């Protein structure tokens, strides 16, 4: 499974560790669980991105009586308002994917910045940044998002930013933990001694050495982003009707689940598969990273 043939003596120098992320990903892809995860994620992304082009109807078009079962023309029947379930399903995946990806990238980037600064800055900067994180960490994530939705209203940008804000302190803690050890190492002292700029030390020397936790964080936060974004949308605070959206579809059709389960089953299955897929990939990355870190120690 994990390639263990490189001898421990061939420990990569700091410069070589710049390609560490590629090595971790390459090893991760060799694991069966990563492959299954990737296949699932690719399948769902394909549905979400290509879906609108193959949908038989418009997502907002009324095509038949409400809650009619599957028939020749409407493969999965119609929803609680008489719109085509399949078409709404094919249109409804884009937003959750885009919002989750955006929230993950912003949240992890902010978390990495804060974590590195705290580890490298030490003393008062560390203290201020970590106390600020504690305040954000004191909110259960979904409740933090709901508080701001109550104040500002259901806006998509707000969901991206608040979900990102719930990620940032968690990522910051992990990255700070990993970076604190790196800051102590000789090559950082050496870089400081030759007068390297602080931001270059942060990005060029410290960041490449926290690649493993960073990759795992990206996967983990993506899973949590999907859970949160889809959850918010299921509660009715994401995209507003009549737009097609997986979370909202479950909300709209939950009460007619007995007569027409498909309008709930399809989006539920898609979101469930997606999070299982991203989590399998994350698990694979984590295992590969542990393998490589053990080798280079």
């Amino acid at each position, binding site marked *: 499974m994990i390639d263990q043939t490189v001898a421990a003596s061939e420990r990569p120098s700091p410069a070589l560790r710049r390609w560490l992320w590629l090595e971790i990903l390459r090893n991760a892809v060799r694991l069966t669980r990563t492959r299954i995860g990737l296949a699932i994620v690719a399948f769902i992304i394909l549905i979400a991105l290509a879906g609108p082009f193959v949908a038989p109807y418009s997502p907002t078009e009324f095509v038949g009586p409400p809650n009619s079962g599957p028939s020749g023309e409407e493969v999965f029947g119609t929803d609680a308002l008489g719109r085509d379930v399949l078409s709404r399903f094919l249109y409804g995946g884009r937003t959750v994917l885009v919002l989750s990806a955006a929230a993950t990238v912003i949240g992890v980037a902010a978390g990495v910045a804060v974590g590195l600064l705290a580890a490298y800055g030490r003393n008062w900067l560390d203290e201020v940044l970590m106390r600020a994180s504690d305040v954000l960490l004191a909110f259960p994530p979904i409740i933090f998002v709901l508080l701001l939705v109550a104040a500002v209203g259901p806006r998509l940008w707000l969901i991206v930013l608040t979900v990102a804000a719930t990620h940032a302190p968690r990522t910051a803690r992990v990255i700070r933990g990993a970076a604190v050890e790196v800051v102590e190492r000789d090559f950082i002292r050496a870089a400081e001694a030759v007068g390297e700029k602080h931001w270059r030390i942060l990005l060029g020397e410290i960041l490449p050495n926290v690649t493993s936790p960073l990759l795992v964080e990206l996967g983990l936060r993506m899973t949590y982003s999907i859970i949160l974004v889809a959850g918010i949308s299921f*509660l009715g605070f994401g995209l507003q009707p009549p737009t097609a959206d997986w979370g909202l579809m479950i909300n709209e059709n939950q009460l007619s689940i007995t007569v027409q389960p498909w309008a709930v089953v399809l989006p539920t299955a898609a979101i469930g598969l997606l999070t299982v897929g991203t989590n399998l990939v994350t698990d694979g990355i984590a295992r590969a990273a542990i393998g490589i870190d053990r080798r280079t120690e």
Partner: protein
Amino acid sequence: MWRRLLVRRLALGLLTLWLVSLVVFAATLALPGDAATAILGKQATPERVQALREQLHLNEPVTTQYVNWIGGILTGDLGTSAATQQPVAELISTQIWNTVFLVVVAALIAIPVSLGLGVLAAVRRDRTVDHVISTAALVLASLPEFVVSIILILLFATTVLQVLPAVSMLGPGQPAWEVPQSVILPAAALVLMVSPYIIRMMRGSMVEVLESEYVTMARLKGLSERAVIWRHAFPNAVAPAIQVTALQLAWMTGGVVVVEFVFRYPGIGQALVEAVSTRDLPVVQAVTLLAAAVYVGLNLLADIVTTLITPKLRTAEQ
């Protein structure tokens, strides 16, 4: 030594909660326009807006508003609902007890079941039982709470079996323990959400303990396998699982929001969702602060448990 650490942690927790209260209060200021127009909408007459402004004390300086609000909360006055004009405390008292009931039922099932499954997986390590438990835990741990809830509804309340109510059938103000079947599916959903983490932790630490010398010694002494596992290995392996359990209970403070909404279970989470959709900020703020207090408290508990059970940490901080 650790008593000083405990005091420090508690003080830090209180400081955090105070800062949290500032953030929760600041949410009011984030309203475009102000709370009164947000609640009444753009079509409201100026007189009504003015009356509501008076009632919400929006004409006073921000600092006075904060002091009044936090003072009220500390003395048990959670404010007045903007939507129904009722006192918030009165409005959410039944819901709070419904949620406490739900969470306690879920915890009482989840803790022994997941500790047991964790031990079972460790004892049957790398055999079929272990693989089934570990894979199920990995899959469940990645599913959103509403997906798990919907699957439960499909399995037990609608399509496959029809033995339980799909949504709670409680009347307004009726406590949940009067209709016990209304709590079964929501509690099951919470159990399925928190168990994977406890199982994994219990399995991991049990595997480690089972490989230790004193377990081998106990076996060599000829003790029964049951005595070895439950009397010798389990007490030494359970500590990390207790810490994770505290963290999972903390998770439930957020998890109940979606689970209660799926089952229309009249608890505090459902009350929060309703208040968010009517933009009833006094209710949202009270519930948020309450949830944060519980969340911080349980995280603190997990922290303290970790410190108490890790000798290295206990002595490290002088």
